């Protein structure tokens, strides 16, 4: 927690991030409450999550999340402007180092690296239409919606000429691992009023708060935004072991050793008996 708070602080200092600053003020978001500070928009998002917490048990092998909602209107629907909905799901942020190999004396060696102070461990974007058609660049930059923008400030001095291939490599590797996803058409809109998005969370989830954001757009401009969070926590045996390993490391280490010695002895004893 400490580390995360510190990282967010670094992120805030390093570059001006109005969107992030705004998020900070309103966290934790209450479900059902739109979080924009602007005057009431003509169209508002009313949304819900199929669940607001996920317990990681021993047999955890991924999870399904359904994010659904409706667009509430006081006035009739504006004509001629294209309606779009984007839903994002973002896992806890953490530092990542991206290294690049090059050939030195005939062998491949890590020669260059770029540090990203905070990249989400998981990031999925579901859209109702292709992202380029429904989102203008300014809104994207402000709200940090598209995948490359999900990464926060660089950590440490940048020692390479061009950091872009490094961040692209990070996105590519995480996409391959199923951790970063862009699902065009993943949001289904019914009658320009109801919408839903399904997310399949992978089995290799990291613990933390998963931030869900819903953006309502018309002609690329933001109309309303909604934010909520899903708590992903280890439970039961997983929780107990994790806590023990971090808070009582010596005891945990001895327990692991005892278990190993016992298993080794038991196997020898059993095999002797069997013979």
């Amino acid at each position, binding site marked *: 927690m400490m580390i995360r708070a510190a990282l967010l602080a670094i992120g805030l200092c390093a570059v001006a991030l109005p969107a992030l600053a705004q998020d900070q003020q309103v966290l934790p978001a209450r479900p059902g409450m739109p979080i924009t500070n602007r005057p009431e928009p003509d169209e508002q998002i009313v949304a819900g999550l199929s669940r607001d917490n996920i317990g990681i*048990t021993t047999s*955890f092998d991924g999870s399904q999340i359904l994010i659904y909602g409706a667009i509430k209107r006081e006035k009739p629907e504006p004509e001629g402007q294209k309606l779009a909905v984007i839903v994002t799901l973002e896992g806890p942020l953490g530092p990542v180092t991206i290294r690049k190999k090059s050939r030195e004396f005939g062998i491949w060696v*890590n020669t260059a690296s770029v540090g990203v102070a905070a990249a989400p461990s998981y990031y999925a974007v579901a859209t109702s239409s292709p992202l380029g058609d429904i989102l203008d660049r300014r809104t994207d930059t402000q709200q940090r919606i598209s995948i490359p923008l999900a990464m926060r400030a660089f950590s440490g001095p940048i020692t390479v000429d061009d950091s872009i291939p*490094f961040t692209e*490599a990070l996105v590519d590797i995480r996409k391959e691992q199923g951790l970063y996803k862009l699902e065009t058409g993943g949001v289904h809109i019914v009658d320009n009023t109801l919408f839903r998005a399904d997310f399949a969370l992978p089995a290799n*989830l990291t613990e933390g708060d998963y931030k869900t954001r819903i953006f309502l757009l018309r002609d690329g401009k933001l109309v309303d935004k909604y934010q909520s969070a899903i708590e992903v926590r280890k439970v039961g045996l997983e929780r107990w*072991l994790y806590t023990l390993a971090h808070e009582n490391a010596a005891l945990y280490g001895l327990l*692991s050793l005892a*278990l190993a010695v016992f298993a080794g002895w038991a196997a020898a004893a059993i095999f002797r008996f069997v013979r």
Partner: protein
Amino acid sequence: MQPPQRVQFMQIYLPIAEVSVNIFTLLGLGGIVGLLSGLFGVGGGFLITPLLFFIGIPPSVAVATGANQVVASSVSGVLAQLKRKAVDIPMGLVLLVGGLLGSASGIYVFNLLTELGQIDLAVQLCYVVFLGLIGLLMLQEGIRTIQKQRKGGGVRKKRVQHTWVHKLPFKFKFRASGLYISVIPPLLVGVAVGILAAIMGVGGGFIMVPAMIYLLNMPTKVVIGTSLFQILFVSAFTTLMHAITNQTVDVMLALLLIVGGVIGAQIGSRLGARLKAEQLRILLALLVIIVAGKLGLDLVLHPSNLYSIATGGE
């Protein structure tokens, strides 16, 4: 790592590694490594660690948990060897003292290399150079012995060669090994193995076994038991160090590897008793050469992705 529609059968979520893995993959992995461990008297760390990387376990967790698995398989192996009176305990203790000293200084070197950002390369180079050299030496020796036996007669190499080694002080009688030598050479072997073991994240049996045979002239029948004895304590020390300093020992992962491993180790040591020492040596040599060759190729061939990512600080 897997596509979302994979068969979700007997998956288990590992609390420290924070990944979900199939139970049978882990049991099988443990079993194979245990079998080799019982057969050759190596801890199996040099196989388990790269294999765990391969199935997607974070490297730091793989190294620490591998050490814990080595503890279990060596307990099992040592007990089997003790029954056959094939452990030279005084020799094991001397090697152990050296091993702990070496391991402590090895951890210092490890941290230094990590700061320089070249630990991966150092580890890979260590693997290639040491595994390759030892593998080739053992293979050559094994083949030569078999050729001599085929020719008949079997001219035995004279066991005791008087060199400067025998003029060193602190001589001690190692009864089980039938040796009367100074404690300094085994102590140094222990230190060297300890340093390498800490840097490479392994028990070090694959270095110690040949060192005992070729440098200390120990009889092959006590080498395996004695090296397992030393590995047991060094890897227990390593596990504890990792658990306390980095919290990277995953007990759930270890348990599954252990269950597979102890069974494999028992089968391996039974099998080993039936094979001839020369055959064992050639088999181990081939295995070691394969691992070294694979790692060597990785260094030389164009990687499929020039970029790699590492999470966490540094």
